[in-house]
């Protein structure tokens, strides 16, 4: 990576972490959702740095475009509720939560630091295809090697759609 890419990485990484903290600590769900949109956009920038242009575009279109709009729609539909800032029901829940998350972070960072040279053996297969364009290389892989997961995904989408319709219909019948 050259100098410009390093600068872009650090800006995107720091703003992703800051807005990620915003997701967890925001008082209102609206602010939490807006922070999450910022995090997702920064992750799309990082995907561009990693030569995953199609994933970056899908990230913006699906997450920031569709999923977060659905979140904001539901938040405004339900009305903003204030449950208090990180109120706790169990004794010591807050302290233990921070402790567990910290242990998890330290553990993962420890293992990443333990194996700095683990990423070797690059097969030079996919990056070489990227000269033709990321979408073409991606599509040829998706419809040859990964056809079965792709078809399974369509089944999953149908199941999710039926589930959402069933959840909505049952409520309507009880009201009438």
């Amino acid at each position, binding site marked *: 990576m050259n100098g410009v890419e390093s600068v872009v990485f650090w800006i995107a990484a720091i703003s992703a972490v800051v807005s*990620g903290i915003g997701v967890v600590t925001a008082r209102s769900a609206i602010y939490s959702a807006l922070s999450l949109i910022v995090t997702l956009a920064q992750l799309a920038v990082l995907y561009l740095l990693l030569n995953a242009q199609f994933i970056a575009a899908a990230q913006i279109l699906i997450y920031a475009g569709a999923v977060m709009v659905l979140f904001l729609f539901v938040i405004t539909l339900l009305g903003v509720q204030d449950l208090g800032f990180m109120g706790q029901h169990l004794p010591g829940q807050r302290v233990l939560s921070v402790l567990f998350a910290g242990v998890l972070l330290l553990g993962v960072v420890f293992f990443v630091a333990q194996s700095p040279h683990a990423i070797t053996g690059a097969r030079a297969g996919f990056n*070489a295809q990227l000269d033709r364009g990321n979408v073409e290389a991606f599509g040829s892989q998706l419809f040859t090697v990964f056809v079965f997961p792709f078809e399974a995904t369509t089944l999953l989408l149908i199941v999710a759609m039926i589930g959402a319709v069933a959840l909505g219909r049952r409520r309507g019948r009880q009201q009438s």
Partner: protein
Amino acid sequence: MTPGPEHFLVLSAILFSLGTLGVLVRRDPLIMFMSIELMLNSVNLTFVTFSHYLSSADGQMFVFIIITVAAAEVVVGLALIVSIFQTRHAVDVDELDEMRG
């Protein structure tokens, strides 16, 4: 400092821990749900990082399918939250301790 794979992995670990913290500490199910989305996205970053540095398409395929699964999950989850809200008029996960609808 030039970023290498370990920088991306540590960033991913930070975001995953933040998502875990959000799930553990918040009581609003919508914010817990968004924290789960944050965790999914941090794992996606790990996949894309390895895909780039291993020069393999597998990671990007995984991410593509994870994004689809996450969209389906959001649809069903939000439908459940709206359904619960319509019967109870307040959504606090600590009060949702009944199995009966």
